[in-house]
């Protein structure tokens, strides 16, 4: 009888956990959809208009990049506590990834056309590079804290995006063969020390 009660309580907890997970996933998905629509609209606008209205658009894109950062934080938190399978997480991540790449492209366009004082870093990593990626993530996080909104970091976790055609195309395009790798101003670099990384970051903006 105690066994039956245990099973009932466990199954109830598990079911509530699943429902809660679904709820979280839906919330995350709706956030990502919003970001996705927004990024697409900004992207199209930048393609359609020859002359961008820089003073009006810069705060908008800055806010959007912040939003996508928050969205990644949520994604990380939710998946840590999630009972959902890896496949479901991968799909969510790929949605996030596409918006992320779109913003990365946008930041490049705005930087060129509006002389935006930012440096954007595309950061490739996966589970296999452990310590090297830990060191690179820590350094990038430090620089992000140091330079705030002028440094835009777009992380790509290949653990979830290994099958994504866009991620693979970017890797091929920038000749990314190992992890960690960063793309700064169109150049690809491997694991860098803090000073080297800071010099590269500051090359593209006023530090």
């Amino acid at each position, binding site marked *: 009888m*105690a066994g039956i009660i*245990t099973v009932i309580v*466990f199954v109830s907890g598990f079911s*509530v956990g699943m429902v809660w997970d679904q709820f979280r996933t839906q919330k995350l998905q709706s956030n990502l959809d919003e970001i996705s629509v927004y990024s697409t609209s900004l992207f199209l606008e930048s393609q359609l208009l020859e002359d961008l209205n820089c003073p009006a658009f810069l705060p908008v894109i800055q806010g959007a990049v912040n939003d996508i950062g928050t969205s990644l934080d*949520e994604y990380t*938190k939710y998946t840590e506590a999630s009972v959902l399978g890896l496949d479901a997480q991968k799909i969510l991540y790929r949605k996030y990834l596409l918006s992320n790449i779109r913003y990365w492209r946008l930041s490049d366009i705005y930087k060129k056309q509006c002389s935006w004082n930012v440096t954007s870093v595309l950061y490739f990593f996966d589970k296999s590079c452990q310590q090297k990626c830990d*060191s690179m993530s820590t350094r990038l996080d*430090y620089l992000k*804290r140091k330079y705030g909104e002028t440094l835009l970091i777009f992380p790509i976790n290949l653990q979830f995006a290994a099958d994504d055609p866009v991620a693979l195309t970017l890797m091929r395009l920038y000749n990314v063969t190992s992890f960690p790798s960063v793309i700064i101003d169109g150049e690809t670099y491997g694991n860098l020390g803090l000073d080297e990384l800071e010099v590269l970051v500051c090359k593209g903006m006023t530090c």
Partner: protein
Amino acid sequence: MIDFLTILAWFVAILSIYVASYYFLLYFDSVNEEQDRVSTPHVTIGISAYNEERGIYKTLQSLNESIYPKSKIHVVVVDDKSKDNTIKEVKRFQKEHPKLDVTLLKNSRNKKKAYYLNKVLKMAKTDFLITMDADSQAAPKAIASLVKYSKGVSVVTPCVLPSEKNKVLARIQAIEYIYSNYLSNILSGFDAQIVAPGPFSLFRVTDLKSIGGFDEKSIAEDLEVVFRLRKKGFKMRLSPTAYVYTDVPQTVTALIRQRRRWKAGFLDAVQKHPKSLEPHTEFGRQNMLNALYHLVPLILLFMFIRFAYNSIKPLFDVIRYVGFDPWIYLRTLSFSVDLLAVDMQMVIYTFFMAAMTLMFLYLASKFQNERPKFFDTFLFIGIYGMAITTATLLAIYSWIKGDYVW
């Protein structure tokens, strides 16, 4: 994502839910029937004392105030070569209370409690022997209440409570004792108690002699003796009306040391009597659950280490890969609460276990007419477990090393 830590957390949750449900169900089935024995046989009370000048007089005084006929009580105090005024105190009591038959035995060498109890057992010419701690006081009805429940059983145990409840730690322990007394009362209905508490327990002399008395090599002789009595098929019962008050540890270190000894004593007894884990009797099931529950602190320790490592690692990473630059991190420090990140499954399990514990405590408090304070109950449920977990871990360590210290 489900990782190894999550699986371990589920294991602890499932085991705890099972144990909680198990005892909850026992509550409905257990009946500890009241006995109607009214005779007053002679009893011998054995007290071993080592440096007990502070409490021995009070202990003897409590026996003197018993409603049990004094002519039927023979108290034997065995002094364990005390270095203080224990002997003087006993002599003072003898002089001031000549009506209570108190014999004082002095030892030339300091030995274990079991040795002295066996000495008293050999001397005992009565039907019953009550073992008593020198820092405990029996309620006036305690002896009569133990005797009342002795029909057909070899051991009768009392309800033990702390003698003083001034400090928070003592009050928290009081809750634990209330809980434990109530559980013993339930288990008594199934003849499944696993310990005859040292502060005050009644033994049938012939049965105890038939198993060779107390094990002088055991670190928890009050527990080990039960295992051997059970082996021979002897029965045990709790008297819900017999109360005894005992000194409890006043510091966390002392508490951990005491519990370490109890738990190491349990593991030692299980190792000596592995058949006591066989689940075809309620006693066996109790031991099995108890033994299984010793795994929980190990798992919790592992989880704590992993958690601490994961929490501290980013800090080490910063120092290692970036250098010591706290200002940047302090400047950008931010806190955000995201309720959606909560692990609802674990919240439900924790809530279920807390609800079961509170319900059990409520029933236990009602059973003993005690009203624990909310704050103490909160500490008992929330924090007390840490001290007991530490004690269990130390006990497991001692057991593995084979190093038992009294």
